[in-house]
């Protein structure tokens, strides 16, 4: 497999915020070359990352 898979419990580690007119963007977690994601329940998002060579 050329992608690793991890599950991230969301709403953790808010570390930076960018503000625009009507919304805000918050970084939740740093990742390494993520590609795809999918919610498996309301609290967890699974993510694929590309393998680091």
């Amino acid at each position, binding site marked *: *497999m*050329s*992608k690793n*898979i991890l*599950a*991230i419990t*969301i*709403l953790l580690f*808010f570390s930076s915020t*960018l*503000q*625009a007119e*009507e*919304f*805000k*963007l*918050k*970084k*939740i*977690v*740093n*990742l*390494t*070359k*993520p*590609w*795809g*994601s*999918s*919610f*498996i329940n*309301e609290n967890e*998002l*699974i*993510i*694929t990352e590309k393998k680091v060579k």
Partner: protein
Amino acid sequence: MWISYSEDRGDWKTSTSIAKANFNRKNLSFKNIFQANPPIDSGYHFGSRLVIKDNYLYASAGERGEGMIAQDPSKHPGSIIRIYLDGSIPKDNPKFINKKKWLPEIYQIGVRNPQGLTLSPYDGKIYASNHGAKGGDWFGEIKKGENYGWKILGWGGTNYSGTKIGPKWKPGFTKAIQYWVPSIAASAITIYKGNEFKEWEGLALITSLKDMSLRTLDFSNLNNVQENIIFKKKIGRIRDIQIHPITGKIYFLTQDALWLMEKIND
């Protein structure tokens, strides 16, 4: 769970492949259920997006930089795939209707590098985004047995060298809903449904790599598609987008992080 990935097929050749595993938190044991053939010695254009609708799995298989291979229905690269969730082949795919020369897994041909694929919760249709060459990205509906035209059509773009490819569109080919010239490098897409951004209900959300933007598309009237840039160059190159199933808040994968988008008054 299902995963689309670039598979090492040996001799420097790779393919867009799909594998399946029973989900657990300790040890995922994947088994292939599809390989795009032939494998190709190229690092380009895998597509590699999945959508589940009922018992069907739709997948995008990029043309791997091979251009006209997307017009060859005896080869998978450059097509949209439809198989059952166990990898078996639906007997109502185009091959079994009126496209006898098509490989049995192929649902639509003529795509280049579709890096966005989504199921609309409103009309039950599958939509894709696709990278053109130098210009010619698009957003459009996936249509059974049809042909998006690559590399007969250039979708408004040119080769990277600047040489012409072909017309933007002509009769006989699927017409996209929206084109971008110059390219924005359209990536993940979704059709918004949720509470957080109620004003976007039913709109397509289009993310991009090079343009680093989030755009909304109101395509309820195909003769008057309305596009809005929500933000640009705030979080970097955007690879994926998800809508929280309860809150409607938006999550983005960028090249190096997971981001949350929510209303300021939350």
